[in-house]
């Protein structure tokens, strides 16, 4: 690997990251094969941490499996399941195993997932978790004890893109202040809104990687507009999905057009398809991205 993700972040290359999910079980060949399709195309693979509070193999273990398979993982880490002891010990372990990129977030509440009765931890929030990561880099732990070897992660955080949501923008500002190396956003459909968002945060010197979820159907767009915070699929796109004879192809066309617009506005894109990455290589080539 000529450049690692941190170096690429500091270069002028338009970045592509893609979300991959660890398996629900101990067999990992299927998700590894899915990730294999992204070799040479994605700059890093973002590994989910029990996404939607649905229990999976740990993001740490699957990140290591991806690393061994020649990928560059970004290990997601949420505040939901571990207190500050567990978070630090996983971060030390991840670093020792060669994982160099992480992405921090609050995490969905357990009641959203398949173990609704489990205890929600949230000992730290995502801003405090960023502070904790920065502290480990200085060679001491969160309680001030010396470490025999610290960490040095390229550390991302997440954000919505609605410029009207002042509280979200203030929180993003806190994340930037606490030293986030990049920001990964909620899925973008409304490029105009994303442009306003980028203007609203232009005083923060942090690279922004725009989220992208290719639409598969009109119903999916309607569901997201109604239920997912910060997602706004504009009327025009809804109309195109409604009229499409092949909604999956139309969703890819829309996404590729969005990518072309985002190339002028963001440092990169983060592709989060629902299901496999079967169509991701084609989507990227439709958008004119051919790989390294």
């Amino acid at each position, binding site marked *: 690997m000529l450049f690692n993700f941190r170096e690429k972040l500091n270069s002028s290359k338009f970045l592509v990251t893609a979300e991959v999910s660890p398996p629900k079980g101990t067999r990992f060949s299927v998700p590894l094969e899915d990730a294999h399709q992204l070799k040479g195309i994605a700059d890093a693979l973002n590994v989910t941490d029990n996404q939607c509070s649905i229990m999976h193999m740990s993001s740490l273990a699957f990140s290591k499996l991806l690393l061994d398979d020649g990928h560059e993982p970004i290990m997601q880490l949420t505040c939901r399941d571990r207190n500050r002891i567990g978070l630090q010990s996983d971060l030390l372990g991840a670093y020792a195993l060669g994982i160099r990129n992480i992405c921090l*977030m609050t995490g969905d509440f357990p009641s959203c997932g398949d173990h609704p009765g489990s205890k929600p931890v949230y000992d730290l929030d995502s801003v405090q978790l960023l502070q904790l990561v920065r502290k480990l880099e200085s060679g001491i732990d969160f309680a001030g004890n010396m470490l025999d070897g610290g960490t040095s992660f390229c550390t991302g955080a997440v954000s919505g893109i609605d410029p009207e949501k002042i509280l979200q923008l*203030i929180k993003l500002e806190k994340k930037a202040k606490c030293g986030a190396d990049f920001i990964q956003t909620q899925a973008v459909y409304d490029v105009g809104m994303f442009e306003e968002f980028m203007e609203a945060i232009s005083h923060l010197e942090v690279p922004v990687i725009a989220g992208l979820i290719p639409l598969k159907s009109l119903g999916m767009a309607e569901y997201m507009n109604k239920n*997912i915070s910060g997602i706004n699929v504009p009327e025009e796109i809804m109309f195109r999905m409604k009229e499409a004879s092949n909604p999956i192809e139309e969703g890819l066309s829309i996404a590729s057009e969005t990518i072309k617009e985002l190339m002028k506005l963001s440092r990169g894109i983060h592709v989060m398809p629902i299901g496999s990455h079967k169509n991701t290589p084609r989507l990227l080539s439709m958008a004119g991205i051919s790989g390294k």
Partner: protein
Amino acid sequence: MIITSAKPLEEILALLKDEDDIFVIGCNVCAAKLKTGGEPEVLEICRRLEGSGKRVVGWALPTAACSVRSFESLAQKNEKINEAHCILVMGCGSGVSTVASVTEVPVYGSNNTLSLGGSSEGKLLSGQCIMCGNCTISEFGGLCPKSQCPKGLLNGPCGGAVDGMCEVNRENDCVWNLIYERLKKIKRLDLLYSIHAPRSMVLNNFISNILI
């Protein structure tokens, strides 16, 4: 106010299945307000226990079940407590524990204890405070995100709220929206920019009691 809800009679009867000669103790503060342990409820449970074939030796209504000086002070209210083979407390968990600490017979609770809350304008306010032992509520305009946000987030909302409603329960306002409105009203929006450190659980009452 400690928020309680009454257990169903069947559950109380199951708790008392091997017991008889029951003495009932209500609580004239929170439980009375919530109708889970005031005089009408105490009389009602006595009647229903007797209707289910149990012997009730008597009852008492201390000012607060969680503030009982001694066994004698309970006996002064009703000496029948001396004949009791068990006690049913109609208060919160703290009331049950306090009564248990001054008595020798088995003590049972008739309520579920839910949270530290309040009531205002006829509305019950549950989960207003988690008693963390390190209060910073004034930095949030008088609304505690540690207790009212299900994730206890101190540095702003999560990404899950939709139209100002909480991700976890869509019928509840996201407390961060309420905090914003409140700080706007009192002209202290500047407070939203403070970065809050995580709470130290060492200061939590529960843990510090053990440490002392």
